[in-house]
């Protein structure tokens, strides 16, 4: 596994701290590192709360893909190797190598297909590990990575029970099974051209595939048309794009009123978790399963680790500023560890170093 993404569930959940800890651990393990970001990070202070933010200290030899304007901002010396012709609000993306250690502000490609291109370029330089730093709560471009670390914490919500439930919900989607090869082959065969996009499709027991225009399910009329294609022999429904809560609810209500229980297939976990109504979506999907339905993915995105940051910025009325506040992270971490099949870590704790090493041993066996 070469490419690991670090995504956050909100601002201040500890993406950059996690990235910095991984950079340090990679250095200790003597591995060559590549780095990019799907947003803009590395400022000294948060541009909303004014609280200090961790910055990224990059060792000599690290290869980076960053926007041109970042070059002048950090203290590291970066030798430009290639210009990629990908433009961002902070200038063209360049690939470079750190020539003198220092702090680096990382802003990179901010969309999925650009990240794919940038990763190809970084891979060509053959680092042992490539990290993709997240931005805010953004996740979509992370489908281009090979494994994901989810940074969450009290900055998302400082209600520990709610944070617990939300984290379980998010992580659960990443653990859904991948569609059986045989069914996948049928769907693949039904596409007009091998390289064309997936479309919303219904597969029946006989292997017949019927398709709708488009890949996302966002309009009520589309749901009507889709329900019209579902026969008692329907085996699977593929929604390769995104889905709105209201459309999904309309679809499942329609299906549940019939005895038919086709498998619902989504392209990858990201397509669901990017929805602003994700937790409502999760409720109707859970109900679908309780009623005998099944869920699957076309492509998996392995969730490797959850990092839990007990910090949150609390607004203080008397000083009219934000101050650092904390929830009981140890208790929540223990509760999550018992329920999740991945590491749950507070990267600021002393034991984190050992766990990060275990992670690297797992992703990069000697």
């Amino acid at each position: 596994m070469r490419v690991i993404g670090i995504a956050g569930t909100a601002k201040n959940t500890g993406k950059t701290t996690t990235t910095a800890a991984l950079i340090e651990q990679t250095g200790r393990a003597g591995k060559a590192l590549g780095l990019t970001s799907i947003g803009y990070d590395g400022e000294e202070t948060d541009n909303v709360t004014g609280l200090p933010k961790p910055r990224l200290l990059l060792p000599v030899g690290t290869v980076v893909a960053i926007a041109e304007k970042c070059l002048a901002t950090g203290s590291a010396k970066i030798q430009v190797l290639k210009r990629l012709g990908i433009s961002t609000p902070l200038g063209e993306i360049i690939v470079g190598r750190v020539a003198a250690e220092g702090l680096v502000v990382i802003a990179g490609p901010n969309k999925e297909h650009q990240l794919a291109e940038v990763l190809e370029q970084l891979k060509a330089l053959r680092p042992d590990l490539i990290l993709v730093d997240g931005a805010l709560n953004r996740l979509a471009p992370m489908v281009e990575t090979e494994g994901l670390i989810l940074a969450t914490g009290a900055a998302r919500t400082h209600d520990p029970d709610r944070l617990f439930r939300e984290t379980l919900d998010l992580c659960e989607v990443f653990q859904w099974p991948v569609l059986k090869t045989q069914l996948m082959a049928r769907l693949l065969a039904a596409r007009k051209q091998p390289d064309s996009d997936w479309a919303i499709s219904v597969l029946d027991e006989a292997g017949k595939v019927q398709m709708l225009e488009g890949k996302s399910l966002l309009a009520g009329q589309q749901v009507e048309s889709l329900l019209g294609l579902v026969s008692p022999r329907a085996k699977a429904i593929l929604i390769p794009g995104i889905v709105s809560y209201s459309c999904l609810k309309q679809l499942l209500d329609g299906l549940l009123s019939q005895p038919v229980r086709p498998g619902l297939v989504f392209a990858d976990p990201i397509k669901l978790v990017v929805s602003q109504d994700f937790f409502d979506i999760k409720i109707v999907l859970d109900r679908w399963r309780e009623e005998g339905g099944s869920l699957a993915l076309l492509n998996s995105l392995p969730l490797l680790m959850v990092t839990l940051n007990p910090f949150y910025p609390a607004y203080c009325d008397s000083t009219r500023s934000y101050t650092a506040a904390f929830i009981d992270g140890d208790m929540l971490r223990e509760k999550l560890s018992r329920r999740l099949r991945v590491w749950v870590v507070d990267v600021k704790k002393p034991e984190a170093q050992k766990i990060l090493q275990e992670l690297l041993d797992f992703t990069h066996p000697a």
Partner: protein
Amino acid sequence: MGNSAKQRVLLAPLDPVHDIGLKIMKRHLEANGHETFMLPPDYKAEEIIQKAIDEKVGTILISRTLGYGVAELLAGFVDLADAAGLRKNVRIAIGGMAIRPELAAELGFDAGFGPGTNPDEVLAFVEGREYVPDLSKESKQKKDISAGYSYRYKHERIGQLLDKIVDFIFDWAADKTSPGVIRAEIREKMLRAEAVFQAGKVSEHEYKKALAELQQAYLEHSDETVRKFFSEGIIPAKTRPLSGSELASLEEYVRETESRMSIKRVQHIGENPTVFIQYGTGCPFMDIAHIKMGESWGADGVVHFDPSWGARTEGFLSGYLTHEEDGSVITPENLRQIKDSLHSSTLWQVRAHRGLNTPETVLLAGAIGADLTKINIAYGAMGAGTDPARMCIDGIAAIKYAAKYNLPFDVVTNEELAGVPAFKAFAGMLVVARLARRLGAKPILQPLFCYSPEMMITGGMEDNYVDFNAAKIMALRKIIDAPMWPGAPIGFLTQTEDRVQSSMTTGLHAALASSLGVDAISIASSDEAYSGGPIVAASRVDTLQAVTEAFRFFGHTKIQPTAKAERHAGEIIAGIQKVLEQIVEKGCFVQAMYDGILGAPEDGAYPGRVGRGRVITL
């Protein structure tokens, strides 16, 4: 890669309220032949994405004001669009008051448009080409504010009286000189020697020898303070040389600042006056920081203020000196440092209107590249403490240098602040202006725009600040066709320690000046009258912004004074004529100053004593 083909653009206010920015863009895009789809406010992200898919648009423009949790909301929208596969073919930009490129990058947009965005920038984004700003709108050129005036006297009688008085001055001064004039002559030789050496025409040894001789002669005509500085290295109190590292970081500061600054314009219409700010913090470093700040917020010119002790001391020090109190020390090195830090479009005025170094100040200003200077014999003698005879001799020499170096100069009338009635101050100003014309120089009249102390006593400005200030311009216009530069600064005695109030009154005085069609104004910072120390940089921005807003607000609209203005103007003209007749009767301009004709003790004016008895009769 330009694409001016017809584009389909979705405009979506991701906001509870409609956004005016999107409406402006809708109009601009349609005017440029593109098709737009405007969504009502408060649509859900999924609905916007569905619309973009249905209408097959190439661009989505989102507008949103920032607030709690909005960053996540916007990033979520971008994510959803990405996950829907939209971003391969559709570009998404965000606009709003709090948007900056860094934020747009963090949120994942293709571009971000903040306040002050030119609609053409967004058009370029939609058409997929690089935005090239129209630099002709931004670039600034120095303006000669004295250009286009004939200096013709419209009031014949006053013109005749002025010529008579100037004849008296020439007669009186014909056989006189002063240490100040002599030092300026020596300085001229020093500058010439330097030029000859730099041209490689003499050896370094010869140059140094010549310079040492000239320096010796210079010190013979200087005060003890200056002699001790050169012979024993004793530096006056609260003054010290800048270190090498301070100078290096100053140069770095200027280089770095210029690399990221842009020049703004205060003026809204061509008729708005040129705007000057004043600097003189004592520290060249701080001065330059203030100048750069002024330039980037629209100041057209900057005025160098020297310390008051500099005006009372015979001779200049040398080197890069910083001073812990008001006023920045004049040395050739300090002036060169400041000159090198100025933007090419910035007008630079070095004041020389008072004191014992007036001729040498104008000479240095001219030689080092100033654009303007400031000279007034009457003010220097009646308001600034220099002996009238000495000020007259030094003033004539200074005006000759101003003519030689083509430095237009304002003739300031700040003695009005001491209580001298405007008509007396104006009489002195008009004498100096006539003298300047006879010597081939370009004087600029500087009536004070203030809450005039004479009016405070008589109650003449109780109703408004407009009539009397307008009357001054109307009166001068009836007398002569000459450039005018009210100051200095405008709004004097109307400002308080309240920065909003100070900015407001400055803006209104600027609007009045513009309405009266003057050529230039000098403005104070919003804390200048009450700073009790170096002024705060932000307070410069206050008044520059206030003036910008005032110019924007009024445009070509005129301010209409009441009938009282015309009456005041008549009184001022009559007063000026009376004073000039008294001088003619006296038969000597200098004696008239001693005798209080241009401002008497009962007005609050006393003939100055600095330099008294140091006029040399040949």
